[in-house]
């Protein structure tokens, strides 16, 4: 039939990070997600596209939202799904990552969705096993589907991403969401500013072309969208040094409450990748505010993950019988 053209296929075989995607890839994912967003609002939310594809979800780190979102996306595409969590598995018996995955692939799995605590785990895996890899978060490195769904939600709410001013607040140092978001938003032409405690700001972060403003009120004045990251309590103080004195102090300096939100004096869109520590980075009144798109982000997550899986599966050659 028609020849392969660059615009109707992804340029990458895997989704390892936003850094591998071109702006055209991201636009293609968004266009495809538009179709899936309509599908998941039908009475029957399922299409048969991936019924000959088997997907393994490998979660070496705890996750509820991302795992459920991926699994729903897979099932709504009619893929066969196997789930694998590290606790109580052969990993705790000392098996290596490549061995674990190759054992799963020996059961004829086509794609692997993996969350792993080590940065670079997805790239490493893609070089050593014969399956398509989707990175569902690798340590403090990247979380590409979260960045895609965040940018998609901004596009849906404001009609565009190009030229939008996005503020990302919180623990930038430990956040894979922040890095993927910066890369994705910049590829789509948005401006990015970061805010948070100095101790949680990577030292050379401005080399990415982002602004840094430690005064949250000033930063909020600048932005159209505020993405309030979760304080990752599980990643703090690993080196025996606390990065901020107390949650109460963090909430006072970098938390968004209704008073502070009203002081901005304009309709800033509020985002949060979840799960929310209510009262820390954001209060309940703000999280449930009319300008909050936190639950839209969750719904769009399924559509974006369906689009990513569909477009990656399209590049898997069909086995001739």
């Amino acid at each position, binding site marked *: *039939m028609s020849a392969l053209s660059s615009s109707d*296929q992804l340029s990458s075989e895997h989704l390892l990070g936003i850094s591998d995607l071109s702006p055209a890839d991201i636009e*293609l994912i968004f266009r495809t997600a*538009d*179709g899936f967003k309509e*599908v998941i609002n039908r009475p*029957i*939310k399922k299409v048969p596209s991936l019924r000959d594809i088997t997907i393994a979800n490998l979660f070496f780190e705890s996750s509820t939202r991302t795992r459920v979102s991926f699994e729903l996306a897979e099932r709504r595409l009619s893929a066969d799904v196997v789930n694998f969590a590290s606790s109580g598995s052969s990993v705790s018996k000392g098996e290596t990552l490549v061995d674990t995955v190759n054992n799963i692939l020996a059961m004829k799995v086509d794609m692997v969705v993996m969350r792993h605590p080590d940065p670079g785990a997805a790239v490493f895996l893609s070089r050593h096993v014969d399956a398509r890899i989707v990175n569902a978060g690798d340590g403090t490195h990247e979380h590409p589907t979260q960045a895609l769904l965040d940018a998609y939600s901004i596009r849906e709410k404001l009609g565009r991403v190009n030229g939008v001013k996005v503020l990302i607040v919180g623990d930038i140092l430990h956040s894979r969401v922040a890095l993927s978001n910066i890369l994705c938003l910049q590829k789509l032409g948005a401006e990015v500013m970061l805010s948070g405690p100095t101790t949680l700001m990577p030292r050379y972060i401005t080399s990415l072309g982002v602004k840094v403003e430690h005064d949250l009120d000033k930063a909020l004045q600048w932005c159209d969208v505020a993405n309030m990251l979760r304080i990752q309590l599980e990643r703090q103080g690993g080196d025996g040094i606390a990065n901020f004195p107390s949650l109460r102090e963090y909430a006072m300096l970098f938390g968004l409450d209704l008073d502070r939100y009203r002081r901005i004096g304009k309709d800033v869109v509020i985002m949060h990748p979840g799960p929310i520590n209510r009262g820390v980075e954001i209060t309940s009144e703000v999280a449930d505010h009319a300008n909050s798109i936190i639950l839209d982000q969750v719904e769009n997550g399924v559509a974006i993950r369906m689009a990513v899986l*569909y477009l990656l599966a*399209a590049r898997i050659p069909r086995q001739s019988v």
Partner: protein
Amino acid sequence: MQPMTILTSEAFGLTVGRLCHQLIEDHGDLKGVALIGLQPRGTALARRLRTGLERILGGEYLEYGELDITFHRDDFRHRSSLHSPSVTQMDFSLDDRKVILVDDVLFTGRTIRAGLDALLAFGRPASVQLLVLIDRRFSRELPIQPDYVGKWVDSIADQRVAVEWKEAEGADRVTLQSDRP
């Protein structure tokens, strides 16, 4: 080879008008009928039919929807290029409706098979009929036949039937094109 005209602009209008009258002949005032245009090319015909029917009957009687079948296609991963999805607009349930599925050209029948599959996500219709502007007969790959036909065309596989619309291409016209010299 020069494209051969199958339907001129005048004939085009007459054919669409006849299809409208055939629908009224079979379905009376069209109560309970849902007209569903298949994306991307069947919706132009479906919109034209809706306008024609409303003009003849003097009011809105039928449900109207547009259906995208991209994710139901049977050639996913069988071809090197991907179809990009179009908009689906279905604001009503198909339960117990008499569905008229509308497309511009019926060729192998595979699009219609995908359309029938996609329809099921919106309910259980009382019946489904197929209306096409052009039926390229003798080229079917599946046991699918139309109920209403604008014009039958006998063609070989590497010829192409091009349906042009005033809204999109500037003129209503159907031509048969061949890549062979």
